[in-house]
């Protein structure tokens, strides 16, 4: 397919949270260049499913979530996160992350939707890594949510019998 490129720069950088980088040039072209290598890669639709054809293999793909330049892509059922950057925004991002100081407040979020059965800590109490914070019931199972850091409980956002959604902040801990 031939597309007259207007606003797009010719290079993009897909960056994973673990800093894995894919530099991709000319994504719509016959010849896509990924990390400086020419690749035969294309996207097709079949039976209402999107597939990528690459290395003579077929990969079922899905854009699971997207928010501006942040993507969650599912390939064969496995999820990958990428932010798509231009060379300029990539440099800026690198610079900013250097400036950013180490965060002192850690938020504990709900790993799944559910109901708070029991709270084991109070605000301003001390907690050690691995100690239980609360019990979250989800899909009829009780799950102990443990602290992944040691520190002081700064704020508790939930109370007993609250229902929470996935990723809701439950507790904030001031890391010691």
């Amino acid at each position, binding site marked *: 397919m031939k597309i007259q490129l207007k606003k797009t720069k010719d290079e993009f950088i897909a960056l994973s949270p673990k800093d894995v980088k894919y530099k*991709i040039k000319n994504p719509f072209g016959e010849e896509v260049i990924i990390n400086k290598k020419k690749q035969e890669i294309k996207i097709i639709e079949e039976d209402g499913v999107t597939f*990528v054809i690459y290395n003579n293999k077929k990969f079922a793909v899905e854009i699971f979530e997207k928010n501006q330049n942040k993507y969650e892509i599912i390939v064969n059922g*496995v999820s990958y996160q990428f932010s*798509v950057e231009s060379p300029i925004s990539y440099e800026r991002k690198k610079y900013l992350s250097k400036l950013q100081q180490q965060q002192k407040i850690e938020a504990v979020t709900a790993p799944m939707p559910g109901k708070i059965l029991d709270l084991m800590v109070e605000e301003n109490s001390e907690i050690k890594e691995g100690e239980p914070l609360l019990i979250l019931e989800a*899909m009829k199972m009780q799950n102990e949510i443990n602290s992944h850091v040691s520190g002081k409980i700064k704020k508790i956002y939930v109370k007993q019998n609250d229902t929470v959604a996935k990723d809701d902040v439950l507790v904030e801990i001031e890391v010691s």
Partner: protein
Amino acid sequence: MKIKNLLIANRGEIAIRIANTAKKLGLKVFGIKTSKEPNAYYLEHVDEIIDFSESQEEIPEFLDIEKIISAAKDYKIDAIHPGYGFLSENAYFAQRCEQEKILFIGPSADAIYKMGNKTIAKQIATKHNIPLLQGSLGNVRDYREALQIAEKIGYPVILKAAAGGGGRGMRIVENPSQMEKMFKMASSEAEKAFKDPSLFLEKYVREPRHIEFQVFGDKHGNYVHLGERECSIQRKHQKLIEEAPSSALTEELRQKMGEAAVKIAAAVNYYTAGTVEFLLDADKNFYFMEMNTRIQVEHPVTEMITGYDLIELQILTALGEKLPFNQNDVKLNGWAIEFRINAEDVQGGFSPSLGKIAKVIFPKSKNIRIDSGITNGSIVTPYFDSMIAKLITYGENRENAIQNAINALKRTVISGIKTTIPFHLAVLHNKKFVNGELHTSFITKEMDKLYYNEPEDELVAAYVAVFDYAAELENDKSMIINFQKSREISPWVLNKRIKSL
């Protein structure tokens, strides 16, 4: 047929599974519609729908005994099949059916009660010289008594809900300092799940195999077993992969365990389908755990290696017919493995993955059986169990069944939600699994990575992200991968629904 119709008091794949056999037997099939999933796929498989969706009751529809009984009377229902879970092992429900002259497709209320109470079940096993794990005789009063018993039989020990099953109300205690906390957790979980906080305690066997025997009885005192299933691949005591037969059993051991299973069934005059669960330790000693008085999720693997339709046998024996075969007729052929496809995010700690399923594609082949409760557009709600389908593969031997499973799972597409398929592929590529070296802590002890991916997957994902982003920049709508078209449920609506739980 002495009956003309059948009400299925269940949902999802098992409702469809039961409906298929019931129709084959010429029965008119009734299903129950709920407000939680009024457009569910199983409703397309029944002849008539009983509508509970206007119900304002707080008690969940499939647990509401009096509502189901009264609907059954209104619709002149002859028989009720409870499936698994819900009321399938509720002795009172079986009794109410009997009182109202509705045929309950399952064992007697007495057998359900005795086997459902683990303390009584253990007493029965002891009386018939079936080996048991050492533990408390009956329920444990409090954590102090639990400490005393544990001191006597040695750590680790396991606390279990007396009325329990399915891993709820169960905690392993490694040393005395954990006892108080674990006792509290197990007890409150048991209270919530079964309305009974009673716990018992037993010796915990490290790395055992979970071996269960499918048994059948009729109302004329005949009993058979249909061989074993191995269900050692479990997470938090929830089975994920089951196979039949087991690579751990010799013909001699199979006969010995099968006889023990039949003895348990005979002790409670059992009829219809039941499952006797054992633990098998590394030295091939087996211990009776419990008997499940219902059809099991994993019954298809037994069907595939024996050729019998277990739902049909269940209905026939409930009707009072004699078992149409005896133990010598039962032959085990080949190997079958079942994979539970759950709507769960494996990378996110198996957390529930809710929402609308955009597209479902299952492979077709004579060696693949799909028992599915979903179709394109189905919605996974937070109200029910996360299992949405089962993929079962068959092979002449275990190696073939594994190879068929890898091919089948790779060709399966379920989009819009996350599923346990990448987990199953990781297990199938695990050397110890391939060698048949299984135990119930397999997932935590033998697996480094809980999902399987191909080396190119990450690059492919990066390319898709860049492609879509660039297309948006170009403002070329025709190029944008239309992923939102299937997502009419926004995360906002879902969150709201969860909050109103």
